[in-house]
């Protein structure tokens, strides 16, 4: 009997400790509430809102290569180039802001994280209300910006102003796309709400890169400019059949000129806010490197420095919103590593990839020295531009005196020389001043049959910091990629002014600020001079001036990721992006051979399908309420 009791006792003891036996997770595991406990912890939540900002400074994540003005060898195609070649697909969309790509999360996740911060930031104990409101405003702006990015590439989108709970039913999670006007209104209103609580201008050196009013107002100017543009404004031609399940048009069907007034006013507001915060068009005021100290007497050279450093100088005075989180760690993933030429003196060439090459189209885009398009300048031998000629002593600031190069490469504006490198031209980098020789077998030409080569015979200098060197990752000089810079706001203003009111002196003046900084004649001087301008006084009518503003914008903002969007919103995309791109014959050693134009890749644009990206088939399947973009 005693045994029996002991046995039962043992059994009881063991069973009573059951629950504890199975509780094995220690306290203080990582839970989400801990994020909004203290300010220091809340930074994690804030960082997560920002982390979804697209990395346009990364080779494989950038939208810069999604264009017809640069290209790569076939072996090096980025997703951007592949899309340009017609390889976008609804099965697995490339560079998809919607579903995420190349390590970048879906922007919808970014929006969810912004909402989490907005909902919870008031729980933090050691922050003032003002700080909390300001942080919430940052998240609000980012939320609006992410919606705007989605809108730019997908057109009508669902609006996620508040997070759906995890327990949401299947029906609740099936959101619908909203008409673009509603989307634009939501974005603008949200930015306006954010502006109230944002700091006027972030100047604290620790906080550079965070959102402030100037940034918000400038982005708002871009948003309203897009809203007024032909793609989104009264686009009945392309999207009369694109309706939701109730038959409501996703795209408004009638053109509303007043939208340009909104864009104009927002741009002016952004300009004023910028100027009040000390933002201006950049001027290079430091001492030039010794090899250029002699040349600095020439405005032609000084202007090249102004233009060049307006991009690559960290936190320069023109930068309204710079990316404070550049692609680092793996520096060789930066856009500039893809563009950079290899230093022939360096044994190791790891960080210089030299395979992102400007196409002839971008070469032809830049103005002549007179500030006119090459086919509109009477002094420029346009028809023979692909022939070669001797570089005269007068042109020795542009190219190497006594050598021969293409006529196309001579007598161009300073921005041309600052942005592009060409055979028999110059490159100010690798700690010195280089005479470029880029034909096959020459010192800067294609090495053997390497896949790392400039397929067009041009190198892209604009995005490369002159002090970056191609012989080691650590020698890349990282800069803050311009998310938006002051020149764009001026260009937005000029465009909106012309569209709403037609040509005006105010619009000329704005454009001339850009042209003056770039070292070309004013609009009136260039187009009003019958000795140089083919179409005299083109700037005095609205259509002519529109062309001028467009080209100015394409030149000034070239290679910064605007071209693809601008061509689409003006509805020119099928005109530019549906034909081959060209370069020189870089595998030729002789002069005649090298200066033969060669097709270096195709561009395919399926009208009107490719105006917007496809939503992935999977997403459409999961959410049958989403209607796919036309053509996909």
């Amino acid at each position, binding site marked *: 009997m005693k045994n029996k009791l002991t046995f039962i006792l043992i*059994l009881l003891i063991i069973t009573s400790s059951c629950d504890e036996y199975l509780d094995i997770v220690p306290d203080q595991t990582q839970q989400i509430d801990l994020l909004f406990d203290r300010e220091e912890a809340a930074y*994690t939540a804030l960082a997560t809102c920002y982390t979804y900002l697209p990395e346009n400074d990364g080779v494989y994540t950038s939208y810069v290569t999604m264009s017809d003005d640069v290209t790569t060898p076939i072996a090096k195609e980025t997703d951007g180039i592949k899309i340009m070649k017609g390889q976008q697909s609804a099965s697995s969309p490339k560079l998809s802001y919607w579903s995420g790509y190349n390590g970048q999360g879906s922007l919808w996740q970014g929006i969810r994280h912004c909402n989490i911060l907005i909902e919870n930031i008031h729980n933090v104990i050691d922050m003032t209300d003002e700080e909390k409101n300001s942080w919430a405003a940052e998240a609000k702006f980012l939320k609006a910006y992410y919606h705007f990015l989605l809108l730019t590439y997908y057109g009508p989108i669902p609006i996620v102003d508040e997070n759906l709970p995890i327990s949401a039913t299947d029906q609740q999670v099936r959101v619908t796309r909203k008409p673009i006007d509603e989307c634009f209104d939501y974005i603008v209103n949200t930015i306006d709400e954010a502006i109230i609580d944002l700091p006027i201008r972030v100047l604290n050196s620790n906080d550079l890169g965070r959102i402030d009013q100037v940034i918000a107002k400038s982005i708002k100017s871009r948003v309203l400019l897009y809203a007024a543009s032909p793609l989104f404004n009264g686009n009945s031609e392309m999207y009369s059949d694109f309706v939701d399940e109730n038959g409501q048009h996703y795209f408004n069907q009638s053109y509303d000129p007043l939208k340009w007034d909104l864009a104009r006013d927002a741009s002016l507001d952004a300009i004023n806010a910028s100027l009040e915060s000390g933002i201006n068009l950049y001027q290079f005021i430091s001492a030039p490197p010794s090899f250029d100290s002699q040349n600095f007497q020439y405005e032609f050279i000084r202007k090249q420095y102004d233009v060049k450093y307006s991009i690559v100088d*960290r936190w320069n005075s023109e930068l309204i919103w710079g990316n404070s989180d550049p692609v680092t760690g793996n520096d060789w993933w930066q856009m500039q590593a893809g563009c950079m030429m290899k230093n022939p003196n360096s044994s190791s060439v790891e960080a210089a990839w030299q395979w992102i090459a400007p196409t002839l189209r971008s070469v032809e885009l830049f103005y002549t020295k007179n500030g006119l398009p090459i086919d509109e300048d009477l002094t420029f031998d346009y028809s023979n531009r692909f022939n070669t000629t001797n570089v005269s002593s007068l042109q020795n600031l542009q190219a190497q005196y006594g050598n021969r190069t293409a006529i196309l490469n001579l007598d161009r504006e300073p921005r041309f020389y600052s942005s592009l490198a060409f055979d028999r031209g110059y490159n100010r980098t690798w700690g010195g001043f280089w005479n470029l020789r880029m034909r096959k077998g020459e010192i800067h030409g294609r090495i053997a049959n390497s896949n790392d080569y400039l397929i067009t015979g041009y190198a892209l200098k604009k995005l490369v910091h002159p002090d970056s060197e191609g012989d080691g990752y650590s020698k890349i000089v990282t800069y803050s990629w311009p998310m938006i810079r002051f020149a764009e706001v001026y260009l937005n203003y000029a465009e909106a002014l012309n569209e709403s009111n037609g040509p005006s002196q105010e619009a000329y003046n704005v454009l001339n600020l850009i042209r003056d900084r770039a070292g070309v004649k004013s609009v009136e001087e260039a187009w009003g001079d019958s000795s140089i301008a083919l179409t005299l006084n083109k700037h005095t009518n609205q259509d002519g001036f529109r062309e001028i503003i467009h080209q100015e914008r394409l030149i000034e903002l070239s290679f910064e990721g605007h071209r693809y969007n601008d061509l689409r919103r003006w509805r020119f995309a099928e005109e530019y992006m549906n034909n081959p791109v060209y370069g020189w014959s870089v595998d030729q050693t002789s002069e005649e051979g090298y200066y033969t134009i060669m097709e270096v890749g195709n561009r395919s644009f399926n009208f009107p399908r490719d105006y917007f990206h496809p939503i992935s088939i999977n997403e459409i399947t999961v959410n049958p309420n989403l209607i796919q973009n036309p053509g996909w």
Partner: protein
Amino acid sequence: MKYRISLFFCFLLISMFTNAQSVLVSGKVVDEGGVPLPGVTVLIERTNKGASTTFEGTYAIKALDKEQVLIFSYIGFQTQKVKIGDQTIIDVILQESLESLEEVQVVAFQKQKKNSVIGSINTISPSELKIPSSNLTNALAGKLAGMISYQRSGEPGQDNAEFFIRGVTSFGYANNPLILIDGLEVSTNDLARIEPDNIASFSIMKDATATALYGARGANGVILVTTKEGKKGKAKVSFRYENKFSSPSLTNDFLGAVDYMQLFNRATRSRDESAPLMYSISKIYGTLNGVDMNIYPNVDWYNELFKDFTLNRSANLNVTGGGDIAQYYLSVSHNNETGLLKVNPLNNFNNNININRSNLRANVNIDLTKSTKIAVKFYSLFERYNGPSVSANDIFSSVMQANPANFPKYYRYPDNLGFNHTLFGNKGNGGFPNPYADMVKGYKDRFTNTIFSQVQIEQDLDFITKGLKFRGMASVRTYAENQNTREYTPFYYGMAEVETEEGILNFLYQIQEGTEYLNNPSVNNYGNSNFYYELVTEYNRLFNEIHDIGGLLVFNFSESLNTIGGNSAFSTLPSRNMGISGRLAYNYKTKYFTEFNFGYNGSEKFAKDNRYGFFPSIGFGWIMSNEKWFSEKLPDVNLFKLKVTHGLVGNDGISSADDRFFYLSDVNLNNWDYSYTWGIDYSNSYAGYLIDRYSNTNVTWEVAKKTNYGLEIGLFNELTIQADYFTEHRTKIYMPRDFIPETMGLTTAISSNLGEVKSKGVDISLDYNKAFDSGLILSARANFTYATNKILVNGEPEYLYNYLSRVGHPVNQQWGLIAERLFIDQADINNSPEQFNGFSSSTNSYMPGDIKYTDVNQDGVVNELDMVPIGDPQVPEIVYGFGLSAVYKNFDFSMFMQGVGNTSFFINPQDISPFVNERNALSVIANNHWSINNPDPNAFWPRLSTYPISNNEQNSTWWLRDGDFLRLKSIEFGYTLPEANRGLFNGINSRLYFAGLNLLNFSKFDLWDPEMAGNGLGYPPQKVYNLGMQINF
């Protein structure tokens, strides 16, 4: 355990009948070795009177008259009948019964009389598991009704077969059965390494009644192995030695360099008529003439890398015996297994696989007192592995990646150019696969220890109430692994051409500087341990000869430490499980049976409210042949039994081992992939957070509702048929809800217990045994398993097209496009729907000779929305086997055929597409591909290409193959030497045998061994010739 009950019974009977008037008979019962047998039942025929032998083997019984017959029966021995006659002292020698184990059946936590088992359990004799392989799992296919099994790889040490009981019945994380060796849960590897010689019984448990007691862990079925225990008597020694020749069952056939280069050039021009050719005429002719192997290599990579066969050895020695107090079973064995890899003569290390395993097993039973017994089990396995630094399976696959014409495995120069390293071949700037260099550049040295120890105490509690017993058991298993990988960096050289005044010259240049020494080893240490405790109370009693009552109550708990690996918060915490299980069994007159079982289990994985699961089951059985009317009408039917069971079983292995504690969210608050940086010099950085799992307190057990209908028939005492029909409804399968759109912005899927699968099937086994008067003993055995299932609920979106849905299809169903044929010409392409929009305008464009697919939904585009269920499931639905064995005089012979059916697989075109990245080409592609000259729209391979053609690489019926096969799994001839009965060899009994494994194969698929399915380029399953010898004394 049951015999102890009957023993007790005898005592009872004796006390009841001692007062009758009678003849007194007494004697002693011993075994063949003269050892007294205690507890032997002595029964007077046709009466209820009986006695039992004492500890000394003696008995005494009173019989009514001399005509009566005494029946001596004892578990494990043949029953003997002796007529009393005039004898008053009857001494009996009982012969050991070979079929003793047939009489009791191992069931969950105890043994039952075989005829009273109503759960669905299959047991096979351990000798069935003896095949010439050092991996027990390779022997399972086709041997046990109810088991689906197949083996995908033949790499020594990595050749475990996949096995499922009654098929794959869930798409949750764990589908594999629970494996118990001597009651302790172990891994598949532990099962693989157990020596068949040491196995006492091997069973699989299939239905709810058989597995419900394992509650939480039994849903996928249970494999139960018990090891041999000692037997009283003088020491018996058994020794076995085997020599095995092992070679690949089937090898792939590749093109020689000349054919390769010609076809490569044709492939280049096939897609672009103006493309420059890779291989010049002079190179091709140079190779054809075999001028200089350095400049014109012609490499058969397979032969450069692998031997034709390898030799494996194994030896096993076991001793059993014991006295009254203690009995022992001891076994030591050693086996040596080697791979097919060649070794570089320049290295002084061995990069071939060479595995040495030694194991020791000691099972000791001690009878402490008459009512208290202790059993101690100890097992250790020491394994020493030597092998290549990279996976041998990858080396096999890399033959496909190498190029026969570009460079030799290494350049052969006199004196090796004076260098102390091998001049490994490569090309251009390097980076081309040289599998030989990968194979010989280093080696891996690993040792692993597995130690298992167990102690069990058993106490008769007859002093409390008759038939009550208690036992407690504690087991520990530990595993440790220590691995060092040593490699040097190979030096690669290339051959370049230069034009000089004397013509074209070739010179060797260095592509990559290597190391002439082995770099520092990369070390990998790992260990884990399991603890298991169980307390069992058992009660068995037969009342009035007709009411047989059995009860069982088990309390168990277990803990596993670091079984998972990894360093996340969750994976490093222990896993625990605890539960109470019970059984209540009743039978009436061994005719009508009923049984109730339950398991009540808790798992650490779930929230408090959902932590415990209750899994009951109930069963009924009827042995019709025990009815009088039946045996009178059908005397030839010695057994006819019907049974039906129904119940629930759980599964807590619903997600990967580091994905546990579903009631907690898994948030990484310090994730630098989600970081952001502010500040003038980009230094004000903060990590971001990432939600890896959203908390869900409702997550709980996966539950299987199982029903089994069984039939057992015995005919003429020769043929036994066991057939079961089963259904299973698996619910609460934990799975992601795939219908949450991106717009929710979640960083991970939300999962919950929502999946459901319904399965059904039959398993049948036939056994035939007959001894002919001529001395021929014949036995035959056949098994058949068919298990199919379909998904009832799946966390999937509402598809626009029904055929995309997995609902209604088997768990392992495959989806793909319907390939019609190859495109005939451009007009054909133009008139067909566009395939995968986007490809058409890119470099991946398809051409005549590429695969044309059906636009199933007729939306004008072929894409993933046109994928329909095609073929049979990847996991075979049918597994069967049949065999025959015969013994005649000193000769014996056996063979076993095994096959699978209802399965298909895809050839992966990405793996074998020739010329892509200058890789090798299979001869079959050279012989049968589409070309302008051979515009066969049904050619094996589409238009050749030197780069991947996405259009052709889609999963489609084009690449689908029937995976059915039937093979001669094993065959064995043996000769038993006549027993010597004098001198040194007195009592020695020995047998020589030859055995073969996988010698013949019948299948529609002949590219590689069909059992490998889609992994055809890996280490192939082996064909083995085995010479063995067994000595007993």
